[in-house]
């Protein structure tokens, strides 16, 4: 797998000196992260290390207490709207999709409606066009025949694939995946990982928080190991997960190899 960074691809999304506190607890203590176009970054680390908070700061789902998020060269401001489509949180989220651990599908809408909701409501895409694209995306994740089903009738793996299709329907430049297989039964993890792997192969820019070490090593161009709110190790999978030099990373990775 090529490292997008080495090829000189432009930076799409960047976090500079991100700090985040919840009450008196500082979860992120100044983190820098940049995503180049087409790059896949894997965020690993023990629970409580701040990796989910970091990825949630990247689309302002959590407002950082310090530092800035920069998208296409513009620092994202505090307000939802903007005049020119550069600095608003709404603009950021329109172009940076997110998939959650617990799917968060809209239970009152069918699978198809879940996928078309964003394009129709946010992008004002004509319904017919949105539906056509949604069906294509559902076919890609192998769920075209479930388009009229309600989420409650789907398995966890199917729900998560619909959630990925819903995020893709916005035609995002970056996709943020927050522990997307952690809530799944073990036998359903594979089908979701396969979808993500195909996205990576197709050149989608992604930040992935995961506990699937083998998957992260396989799919990511770069691995960031977080511990206690800081990035402790950064490097290619071959230098990190496969051959950890750092003691804490080695201990962390070793726990997944049993």
């Amino acid at each position, binding site marked *: 797998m090529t490292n997008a960074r080495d090829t000189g691809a432009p930076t799409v999304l960047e976090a500079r000196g991100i700090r985040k506190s919840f009450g008196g607890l500082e979860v992120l203590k100044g983190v820098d992260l940049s995503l180049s176009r087409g790059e896949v970054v894997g965020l690993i680390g023990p629970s409580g290390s701040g990796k989910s908070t970091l990825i949630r700061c990247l*689309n302002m*789902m959590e407002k950082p207490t310090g530092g800035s998020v920069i998208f296409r060269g513009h620092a994202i401001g505090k307000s*939802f*709207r903007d005049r020119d489509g550069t600095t608003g949180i*709404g603009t950021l*989220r*329109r172009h940076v*999709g*997110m998939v*959650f651990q*617990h799917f*968060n*599908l*809209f*239970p*009152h*809408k*069918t699978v198809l409606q879940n996928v078309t*909701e*964003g394009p129709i*409501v*946010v*992008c004002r895409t004509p319904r017919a066009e949105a539906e056509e694209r949604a069906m294509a995306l559902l076919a890609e994740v192998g769920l075209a025949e479930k388009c009229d089903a*309600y989420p*409650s009738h789907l398995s966890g793996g199917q729900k998560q694939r619909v*959630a990925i299709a*819903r*995020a893709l*329907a*916005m035609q995002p430049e970056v996709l943020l995946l927050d522990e997307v297989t952690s809530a799944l039964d073990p036998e359903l993890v594979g089908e979701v990982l396969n979808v993500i792997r195909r996205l990576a192969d197709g050149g989608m820019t992604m930040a992935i928080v995961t506990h699937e070490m083998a998957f992260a090593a396989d799919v990511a161009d770069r691995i960031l190991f977080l511990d206690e709110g800081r990035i402790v190790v950064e490097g290619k999978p071959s230098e990190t997960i496969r051959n950890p030099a750092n003691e804490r990373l080695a201990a962390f990775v070793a726990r997944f190899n049993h």
Partner: protein
Amino acid sequence: MYRWDFDVLWQYWDLFLYGLWLTVVYTFGSILFGVVIGLVVCAARLSGWMILSLIARTYQEIFRCTPLLVQLLWFYYAFPLLVGISIDNRVAAMLTLSLYVGAFYAEIFRGGILSIEKGQREAAAAIGMSSWQAMTRIVMPQAFKRMLPSFINQSVIQFKNTSLVSVISVADLAYMAAVVNGQTYRPLESYTVMAALYIAVLFPLTQIADWIERRLRVSD
């Protein structure tokens, strides 16, 4: 053995009908105003503004913790002394009924909205929706379904509660039944007809409500 005689009541059918009409008007009128009040109060409580929330909360507690009968008497007899203008009994009745049910509706709306998981709002935000879009397209439709049974229940109670306006001489169904009884000295017949009319309106309504609830359950 009591000899039932409904025949003497026939000549008063127009009084019953007018009373029933007023009962229906006060019920639906106060439900309509109550929904508006409930939405505003609910929004105030969820606004995150301390002062606004406190005012809304105070209103709710006052109206939920005093009997409707006491509120009716207060608004008709006491309130005019306070503000120095006399209030028509029909206005006092509609005002009190609306404020009363609005306090309960606000709590039903608030409970419904708060019962929707945070993840729903986040998922809406993640596809670029504004908080208004997330609220109206994602949270409200789900909350509506959850609050519907309590809402209908409260509205059925409201229909029955309107009978209390008769104490401030509003000529609703209960008031008219008392009038007919005064004319005929037939309490058993007068009040039985009154009860039957309440049932005749409410029973079909509760059946329709059940049907709507079942229809809304398709996505579960």
